[in-house]
């Protein structure tokens, strides 16, 4: 395991600027998640660290050593590819053993077998070891791709949306497993995801990336409670933060154009004695909680409600804000 530093790296593909001036340090044994919308440059960042792409500018250091020009093999990284990239002509076992089989490494066959079986059990694919990689479901392929990385002990694990094809139950389970492995091994992981729950629960720090730029990096708490701008704020929170014109409510600080109100910033009550009144348009029952779709002065607002509260479409309610976030005209945070 090692510390990995990305120093002002830029990368363009033709006229697409995939990454601009990205700097990021992943400490030894740290779990960093990259969160961002599609096309943000997350995969590109991982590929640059792995050496599958060369940066236009900037450098990459692993354990203090500049590896910018090095081939992937010399960087000792493990990669879980977004599109799996399994060897289609090999069995699941051979796929997972491939990296251990390098002639120079001379890992004894019995050790390889034991390691692959251990990881396969962890990922619930131990019965599929003799299948060809093409005779698997998407979720199974994805787990083989994870397994292929986990059998190694590289300087860093690069994981590109490794749980995206799994069902909710398995995803929850593997989230815990991966976190446990990371803690046990003291592994360094850079983890790309769309899923905020994964980022919030697994990462020690989250980097929010958008349009090839790192918007903010910090602990999940910092990112959630103290987003630097509206983009970052919109990344976290379920349901997503409601961005409303400041004029709709009174009491915004100078310069604030937009109010960002998460569920916990909104208090709902029946009747019309709050700051603003709203109409319930629709109620989505999710079991333990309900999503309340409101209409506030023609603006849609989504918030959580207790299913017991018994709101129904057409009800008139009142909203009260409590310590929401404020953003200026360009989306940057304004202190309350």
């Amino acid at each position, binding site marked *: 395991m090692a510390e990995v530093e990305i120093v002002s790296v830029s990368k363009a593909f033709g006229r697409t600027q995939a990454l601009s001036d990205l700097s990021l340090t992943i400490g030894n044994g740290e779990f960093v998640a990259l969160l961002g919308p599609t096309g943000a440059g997350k995969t590109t960042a991982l590929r640059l660290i792995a050496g599958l792409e060369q940066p236009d500018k900037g450098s990459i250091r692993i354990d203090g050593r500049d590896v910018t020009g090095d081939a992937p*093999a010399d960087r000792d990284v493990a990669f879980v590819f977004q599109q799996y990239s399994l060897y289609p002509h090999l069995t699941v076992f051979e796929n997972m053993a491939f990296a251990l089989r*390098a002639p120079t490494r001379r890992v004894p066959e019995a050790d390889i077998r034991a390691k692959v079986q251990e990881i396969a059990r962890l990922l619930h694919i131990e019965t599929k070891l003799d299948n*060809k990689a093409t005779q698997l479901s998407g979720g199974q392929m994805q787990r083989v791709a994870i397994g292929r990385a986990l059998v190694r002990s590289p300087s860093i694990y690069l994981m590109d949306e490794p749980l995206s094809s799994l069902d909710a139950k398995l995803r929850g389970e593997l989230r815990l497993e991966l976190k446990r492995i990371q803690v046990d091994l003291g592994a360094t992981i850079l983890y790309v995801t769309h899923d905020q729950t994964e980022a919030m629960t697994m990462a020690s720090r989250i980097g929010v990336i958008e349009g090839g730029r790192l918007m903010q990096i910090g602990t999940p708490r910092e990112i959630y409670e103290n987003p630097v701008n509206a983009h970052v704020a919109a990344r976290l929170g379920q349901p997503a933060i409601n961005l409303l014109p400041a004029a709709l409510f009174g009491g915004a600080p100078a310069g604030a154009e937009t109010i960002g109100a998460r569920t916990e910033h909104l208090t709902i009550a029946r009747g019309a004695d709050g700051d603003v009144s709203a109409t319930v348009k629709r109620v989505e029952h999710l079991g333990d909680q309900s999503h309340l779709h409101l209409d506030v002065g023609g603006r849609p607002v989504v918030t959580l409600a207790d299913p017991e509260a018994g709101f129904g479409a057409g009800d008139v309610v009142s909203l009260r804000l409590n310590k929401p976030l404020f953003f200026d005209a360009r989306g940057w945070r304004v202190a309350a």
Partner: protein
Amino acid sequence: MNELSASSRITYRAVMVRPGVARRIRGLSDKTLAWLFITPTILLLLAINIFPLLWTIYLSFTNYRANRANVPTIWLGADWYRSILTDPDIWAAMQVTAHFVIWTVLIETVLGFGLAYLIDKKFRGHGMWTTIILLPMMLSPAVVGNFWTFLYQPQIGLFNYVVAFFTGRAASSFQMLGDVTLSPWAIVIVDAWMWTPYVMLICLAGLRSIPDYIYEAAEVDRATKWRQFWSITLPMALPFIMLAVLFRGIENFKMFDMVNLLTGGGPGSTTEVASITLKRAAFESWRTGYSSAFAIILFVTVFGLANIYVKALNRVKSR
């Protein structure tokens, strides 16, 4: 599957067929319609493929001669087969054929795959090189035969000149087509020259079918280029290579035109491949029954070998 075809059937009837016709063919089941469509093709195939084959089988048991059609034919049973299979000349021809097939296929596969591997690296101008390399394959065998007859000319031929240039022996001191030991190789060289591009093309298709991301995964897995070649490139391209070997093997087993043009089977019978023996028996000696039997033996041999080979190919593919 069944549901799907049922619904598409309905759509076809509704969309493709005018109401009047639909009413008239409503009585026909899908199966009947299918038969209706393929029957003409089947009849044509029967007439030009199956009937001649059966007729040849029949003739192979008789003493029929095409140049004496009036002589009453006598049923000989398996006599021809017995005499062919015990004839040392036939076995010699088979050996010449085997030598020719094995060496051409071997050389063409190694060179063809090698060229494909180089071309696949996408260096500058690889498109132009591909076209140039493919040229020989696009020529007619008759042209190639004549063309190489000139190249092999001991006095004025370019081939002899080039060999002389590199080895220092006199150009007219050897005759590629007239020498007992050299002439089989002369033919192998021409066939390799002409058909290596074909093998290259098939191998190239195989190499292009391997996605780049597999090599990326292997790079990250720290596989050397050497290991990538042996454990990814070769196994994944193998079905294509085997297909090329099958095509070239069958084609060269029945090779006739080029050998006939270059050496006509000579000198002596050193390049007399089976098809030349067959042609001589059939159209020079007019032993129609005998040559029919020989043709059937060749057919069964190729068919049997090809079948075994295709089984192996399928095993590789499903591995």
